[in-house]
């Protein structure tokens, strides 16, 4: 059995589509997504897991793409901010961000959206406190967070109304 590999061929689902790509042993999932798969929505902020700008969703869980080894994506279901919008247009979470002015410079937005998306999948009716906890791994230096929290609250309400 040959255990070790320098270039690692991996295969995973990215935003609903299967992708196959070769990555180096130590590269981050963030590098693979941005530089090999050319999805530039996921941002590199601090690169050490403090700011959350690189948040992606792997097997329904929010993770920092800067701290994940690309090879660990193999066989996983991965979602980046590009996977949110549907053919018809932005999804309700994104619409709520627009309506509530939850975006200023926009650099943190993709990461916040992914954290919010994972939160709503896990807990469709979060209260304000749970929303704050859910996105507190994401730093935003512009908005002061209030508009972001309101947007997520609104999106959650809309989603639960749609279900009824």
């Amino acid at each position, binding site marked *: 059995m040959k255990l070790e590999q*320098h270039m690692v061929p991996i295969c995973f689902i990215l935003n609903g589509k299967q992708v196959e790509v070769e990555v180096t042993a130590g590269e981050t999932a963030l590098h693979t997504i941005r530089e090999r798969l050319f999805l530039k929505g996921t941002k590199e902020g601090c690169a050490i*897991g403090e700011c959350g700008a690189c948040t992606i969703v792997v097997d329904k869980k929010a993770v920092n793409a800067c701290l994940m080894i690309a090879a660990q994506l193999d066989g996983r279901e991965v979602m980046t901010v590009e996977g949110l919008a549907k053919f018809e247009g932005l999804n309700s979470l994104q619409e709520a961000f627009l309506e509530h002015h939850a975006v200023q410079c926009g650099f943190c937005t993709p990461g916040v959206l992914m954290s919010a998306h994972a939160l709503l999948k896990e807990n469709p009716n979060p209260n304000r406190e749970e929303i704050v906890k859910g996105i507190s791994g994401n730093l935003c230096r512009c908005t002061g967070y209030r508009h972001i929290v309101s947007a997520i609250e609104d999106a959650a309400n809309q989603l639960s109304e749609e279900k009824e």
Partner: protein
Amino acid sequence: MGADLFYLRPKKLDDALEFLGDHGKETSIVAGGTDVMVNLRSGELKPKYLMDVSRLPELKRIEIKDGGLRIGAGVTISDIYTSPILTRLAPTLQKASYKFASKQIRNVATIGGNVAHCSPCGDMVPPLIIHEAKVVLKNSGGERTIPIQDVPTGPYRSSIDPEEMVVCFMLKPKENLFSDFQKIGRRKELAISRASMAVMAEKDVEGKITFMRLALGSCTPTPQRSTDVENLLIGKVPSETLLWEAGQMVVNKMIETSGIRSSTVYKERAVQGLFMRMLFPLVKHE
């Protein structure tokens, strides 16, 4: 990083241990990667091999075994937070998991990684200490079991051999008692603890403390259990004055171990305050 780094993901624990037997010194074990990737990036870590153990099923279980509570090294901090067994038998560990880093990190970081990293500020360590956890280490030839306090030999230095791997933790479960974990950090989320404390206590009908475990993190080179304080309080009805005295004991022990540092003037007050805040509920008679 670059051309001379290799990645491997053994399918079985035995394969992983065999590889460590041959290449342990040149290998970094990766589970959540949340510490390894930071150190790899900074150049602090220069392994030849990255061995991914994040999918080894042997490391993922939380179970009751031989009357003890067994937590696999690969259990994530999020798993700890959602485990009903731990709500019942190790609530302090669960409280610590809630305050651990951020959601993104909790989803992948593991309890084994937090312990093996040997940071003085590892938030899983004080709760493990008060549950008198034993750490099971395996290599390709067999296994040994050591007390949790013996894992770190200093900040970021461990007594784990390069050929060994943390496989699981064996805790003494404790049910239905007063328990708490709190920490002080510069911000709520993602804060590296400046002081952390885990406590479990039980009182009898007369209000006397019959059982007590206390551990302090982030204030000494390795997290410490405070047996002096436990002995002082056991058998007594806790009053505010007695708790203050006990808190001073924690502070004095901290200074005795770490010496006077630039942070001491802050930490002696902070630790006393943290101690009072956490243990004050014991003073009230129900």
